[in-house]
């Protein structure tokens, strides 16, 4: 059968096949397409599965390596722990010493201050208790000395800003012309 091509104008197709064959062909086309797509999908999935497996193996290796490095570092640090412990003990002891060193400073300061300021008088007895409160019994022949002592004790510049309250009690003048009195000094 010879087909005269020139006789058919461009853009024209004349279908001479029966309609059933055409439908069957279209159907088989679809089936082939679906089959190809499904196989391609399967292949993609298989490649993805292989890739994920490779990734997993690589990750497992990385994990193993990092665990080994961690164990090595841990072992090394265990060997150095005594050095660290020594330093920590030193630091703890230093902080204990530091906190204890100045615990009685106020008591000593009050004692030193009052005994210095009352140097012109006779101190009879003196007590500094745990709260650094001082009770002192003094005697002097001069009223000016008492005034000076009270001024010094109440002056911020002279008392090193250490004293908050002074109680004067039991002031008496004896037959021997000597003033006797007690002071209760409460520090800040």
């Amino acid at each position, binding site marked *: 059968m010879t087909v005269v091509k020139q006789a058919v104008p461009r853009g024209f197709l004349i279908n001479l096949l029966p309609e059933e064959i055409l439908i069957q062909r279209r159907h088989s086309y679809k089936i082939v397409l*679906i089959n190809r797509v499904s196989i391609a999908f399967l292949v993609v*999935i298989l490649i993805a599965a292989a890739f994920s497996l490779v990734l*997993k193996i690589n990750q497992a290796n*990385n994990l193993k390596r990092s665990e080994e490095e961690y164990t090595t570092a841990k072992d090394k640090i265990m060997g150095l722990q005594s*050095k660290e412990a020594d*330093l920590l003990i030193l630091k703890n002891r230093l902080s204990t010493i530091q906190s*204890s060193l100045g615990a009685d400073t106020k008591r000593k300061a009050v004692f*030193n201050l009052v005994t210095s300021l009352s140097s012109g008088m006779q101190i*009879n007895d003196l007590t500094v208790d745990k709260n650094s409160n001082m009770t002192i019994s003094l005697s002097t022949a001069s009223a000016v000395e008492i005034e000076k002592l009270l001024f010094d004790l109440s002056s911020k510049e002279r008392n090193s800003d250490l004293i908050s309250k002074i109680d004067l009690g039991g002031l008496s003048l004896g037959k021997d012309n000597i003033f006797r009195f007690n002071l209760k000094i409460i520090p800040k």
Partner: protein
Amino acid sequence: MDKDNLKIVYRRFNFVLLPVISVLISLIILGLVIVPQIISYFSLNARIKDQIAQTDDLNSKITEIESINNEDTKKGLEITLTILPTDKDIPSAILSLQTLIAKSSVAATSSGQLVLKDIIYNNSKKGSVQNSFQLSLTLVGPLQSLKNFITYLQSAPRLYQVESISAQFQKGSRTVEVELPISVLYDPNAKASISFSDPVPKLGAKEAEMLNKLNSFIVPAQPEVYSSTASVPTGKSDPFE
């Protein structure tokens, strides 16, 4: 269902058999292999990152610990253990107090000397601080010597705390008899618990300064040595020469 029927069904659904099987296999692979691995990938990755970070931390800690001068630490520990021993060590505490008393005397004459009249160790009396014991001193001497003693207590080779001061002065003089309960501190904790996550302890400038200060408390000032034999002829080193 007979054979003919099966054949009819097979012919009818023949074309969908391959896609269905391949999709099923794909779904199974996806569900059982790919999805679980993707899920575990992220958690495992986080674990690896965490492990690497921990290793890095440990390595930097190792570098820091290695940079610690062990000699300095040991010396510092020695100093602090002298100042604050692990046990009571009462004899050394008393000895140190006696040395301070002798040092406090304003003059070598008996009238200027601070005298330790009495010293009482009371086992039942605890100091105001938790790990301490109390020594009650009775001292007699000039007020200035007592003041010196109280000052020297601050730079003593043991840690002392004056609990209270109770003084009685002699009439017409600055001589005083004083009762001085003193707490002597010690610290039985000589162990430290360390965990890997803790940062490396470091001694700051303040602590180094403190150590120097404590060291000066322990090292006694070198006494002035007067050499009276310097001008004396010593003769030959070998007398049989």
